[in-house]
């Protein structure tokens, strides 16, 4: 009985809140992680600034790939 009620409970709005809440921060987190990896690899291998630039680009790309996928999934859900 309770399970039926939970299923009737509109979960899709909450689901969307979760998705949307994850979008912005994921973009920033991916960029920051790329930057951090590049910075530390540069420090380690003494190749500054090349790996920093490369991994920053990777990070930005990862952020946008994530954003694209999540939005795609969100629109596929409706």
């Amino acid at each position, binding site marked *: 009985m309770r399970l039926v009620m939970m299923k009737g409970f509109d979960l899709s709005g909450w*689901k969307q*809140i979760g998705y949307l809440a994850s979008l912005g*921060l994921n973009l920033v987190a991916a960029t920051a992680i790329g930057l951090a990896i590049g910075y530390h690899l540069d420090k380690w291998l003494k190749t500054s600034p090349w790996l920093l630039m490369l991994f920053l680009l*990777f*990070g930005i790309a990862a952020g946008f790939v994530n954003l694209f996928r999540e939005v795609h999934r969100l629109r596929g859900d409706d």
Partner: protein
Amino acid sequence: MEGLESFSWIHFFSQKLGLHLTSEMELVAMTWVVMLILVIPSLLATRRLRSVPGPLQNVLEFLVESLEGILEAMMGWRGRRYLPLIGSLALFILGCNLLGLIPGFHSPTNNLNTTVACALVVFFSTHIIGIREQGALRYLKHFVGPVWWLAPMMVPVEIIGQLARPVSLSVRLFGNIFGEDTVLLILLALVPLLIPLPMMVLAIFTSCVQAFVFVMLSMIYIAGAGEGGHREKMESQEGRKE
């Protein structure tokens, strides 16, 4: 924030006992409080299970059934297997968030250490579940991307994308709870009477939403790792038919 020191029971009692606790140790003690709040009722309720439940068993059954319902709504019937992981994460984070609203207690989640611990649990279990469900080779193939000559670019991009998940999970939870507690603290310092009440109501709401968002995103990640995306699943079903 230096001048604002809020009262805490742990600090009070440890000073009575002549102990000096750092703020991190105090937060660990607060985590123990949450553990006690969660463990003692469940021990009491499960020690003598009845088919006609008493009040405590009723509440816990409702909680477990609701969590099960959410899991099923999000991940399908296979999601039930992850009830222990997701359910305990949900209750722990909800307990941590709400503990900060009781006067004299602080949320353990307003320290980054607690949230990173939770996010790392989700991170590792995602990959372990992915490898167990699909096998190591098939799981790692997802990191290469669809076209082989794009692989040198896709591998770092995918790895960074995976690493960004625990970062955003933990920072989101920490940021929301920290902000909420700070606003409450400042309001309490300015006008202690009645004015913080609407903010506290809002804080109850954000506590629940943040716990739900954390758990929901972990469910999405685990479901994604376990199934390997809808397209792969459909393809494998078609392959089986042939």
